């Protein structure tokens, strides 16, 4: 028997949400229902309601925003997850698998909505998953069924007859951060720009909210704009939850040790290519030993930063290849193999082998230095890290760090010392020039401008300023013939301080 012919093929199911802010009364029923449905621990949130007070007396209003995962059609968290623990289901829901999460926090750094957190009890990343466990058995999400004003509507975006499709297609709806190219499937009806834009509202004086205080601490990001907000309507944040920066000092430190690991091989390799004796101990021994020690520290810091350190091997055994964390893991592993080969060849008394290995080592060292630029750029939420100058900057930084780290060893030969010192001074000068560009060129977005402000004159100014001064002092010390150890310490300390300011300031802007 012939199959019935359908004029229009059935479109696949595509779950989407509308939050009607014209109906929302800010009662937090959705926040509490979500907590009980998903057993969300205290201090973290899959969903909450942000309050912003707009206007001046007597013309005022309170604007609400139900804040949660935006169920992006192009989810940056999924692209950046190294093990595919964050994944997108066929029906469009962005879900997560806690059993393979390594806790690298790349998804948190990537999310432009600050909707992901590490569960303090099981140490895995989680967020709103559309109550997939309820949808799968035919129940609406917990927040939908408790909302007393029916302000949350879920449905199939491909079903023209659904209430959701009607709202999305015929009402005036908006999404958060459209410039991030994530194509959110959470639409807001009647939301105020002062709530949609995380820096449109001013941070309240003294950090006092309507009924709570803004927590302060090393990794905490205070909500609201600290200075003059991105809105002229006198908006002030009245309630928000605590937000944290995902990557702490370990990531700042990792970029620094990785720079040394790459540069300590690159500098002698370049010298060998330009005529240095291939049996010179700087190339034969110092390159693999200094780079190897720094690379081990790098890997140690990377693993130490995971909330599931014992699962680090999943990056290599089940890599998600779009993730620069997975790609970086492979690059660093291969680079480590080359360094080990180089060292073993030196031990075996075969100086010709390291020279042959150089053709693999050189590109791997360059990749190890620069891949972090793509890793940071994958953190879509952080505008400061989207700089196209970052790859050259990281390469120059690696050359400066490597040369500086080798200085005490090169000091045994005056000719070599002059060469390495000259290289360190030149690379550090170019690095300072690139930093000057980063700090002074106008930034394209209000977010990036605020991040640069936090770096140069705000929360991280002392790291930034001492970083610049120490690097400058290092260049001066090199030019005036100061002891090699002093030059090395000044340059390396300067680079570390600057890097910490850059990494932390990138995360210092509120996102929700």
């Amino acid at each position: 028997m012939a199959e019935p012919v359908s004029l229009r093929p059935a479109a696949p199911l595509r779950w989407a949400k509308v939050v009607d802010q014209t109906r929302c009364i800010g009662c937090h029923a959705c926040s509490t229902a979500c907590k009980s449905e998903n057993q969300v621990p205290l201090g973290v949130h899959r969903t909450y309601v942000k309050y912003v007070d707009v206007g001046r007396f007597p013309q005022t209003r309170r604007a609400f925003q139900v804040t949660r995962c935006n169920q992006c059609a192009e989810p940056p968290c999924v692209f950046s997850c190294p093990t595919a623990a964050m994944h997108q289901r066929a029906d469009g829901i962005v879900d997560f698998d806690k059993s393979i999460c390594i806790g690298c926090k790349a998804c948190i750094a990537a999310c432009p909505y600050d909707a992901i957190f590490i569960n303090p009890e099981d140490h895995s990343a989680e967020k709103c998953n559309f109550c997939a466990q309820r949808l799968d058995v035919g129940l609406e999400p917990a927040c939908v069924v408790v909302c007393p004003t029916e302000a949350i509507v879920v449905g199939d975006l491909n079903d023209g007859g659904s209430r959701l499709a009607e709202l999305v297609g015929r009402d005036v709806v908006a999404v958060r951060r459209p410039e991030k190219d994530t194509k959110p499937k959470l639409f807001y009806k009647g939301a105020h720009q002062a709530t949609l834009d995380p820096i449109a509202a001013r941070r309240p004086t003294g950090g006092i909210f309507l009924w709570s205080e803004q927590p302060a601490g090393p990794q905490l990001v205070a909500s609201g704009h600290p200075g003059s907000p991105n809105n002229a309507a006198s908006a002030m944040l009245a309630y928000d939850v605590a937000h944290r920066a995902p990557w702490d000092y370990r990531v700042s430190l990792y970029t620094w040790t990785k720079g040394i690991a790459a540069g300590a091989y690159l500098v002698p390799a370049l010298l060998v290519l330009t005529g240095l004796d291939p049996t010179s101990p700087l190339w034969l021994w110092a390159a693999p030993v200094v780079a190897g020690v720094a690379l081990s520290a790098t890997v140690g810091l990377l693993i130490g930063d995971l909330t599931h350190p014992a699962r680090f091997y999943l990056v290599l055994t089940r890599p998600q290849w779009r993730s620069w964390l997975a790609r970086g893991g492979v690059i660093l592993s291969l680079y480590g193999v080359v360094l080990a080969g180089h060292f073993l060849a030196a031990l075996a008394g075969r100086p010709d082998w390291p020279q042959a290995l150089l053709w693999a080592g050189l590109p791997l060292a360059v990749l190890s230095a620069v891949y972090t630029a793509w890793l940071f750029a994958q953190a879509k939420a952080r505008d400061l890290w989207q700089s196209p100058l970052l790859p050259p900057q990281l390469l120059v930084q690696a050359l400066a760090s490597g040369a500086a780290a080798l200085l005490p060893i090169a000091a045994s030969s005056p000719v070599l010392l002059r060469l390495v010192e000259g290289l360190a001074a030149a690379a550090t000068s170019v690095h300072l020039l690139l930093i000057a560009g980063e700090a002074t060129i106008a930034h394209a977005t209000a977010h990036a401008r605020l991040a640069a402000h936090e770096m140069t004159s705000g929360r991280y100014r002392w790291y930034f300023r001492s970083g610049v001064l120490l690097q400058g002092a290092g260049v001066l010390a090199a030019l005036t013939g100061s002891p090699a150890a002093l030059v090395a310490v000044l340059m390396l300390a300067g680079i570390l301080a600057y890097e910490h300011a850059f990494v932390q300031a990138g995360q210092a802007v509120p996102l929700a």
Partner: protein
Amino acid sequence: MALRKLDVRGSKCPIPIVKAKKEIDAMAPGDQLEVTSTDAGSVPDFQGWTRTAKHALLKEQHTGKDETGREVYIHLLERK
């Protein structure tokens, strides 16, 4: 003595209690009400509410599976 049934599957606190109270208020003393819920939180909710409610008495609570295979929580109440 009549037995009424109330289906509150899919809803969460406080809807199961609210709907049960509306139903109980319209019943005669001695009548029974069987509430079927999918919310695990409804178990302590009904215990707590019947402790203070004027007209409702909790006779029995048990779990089971409904026709779709979902876990359900069944509460048997009596109008006082």
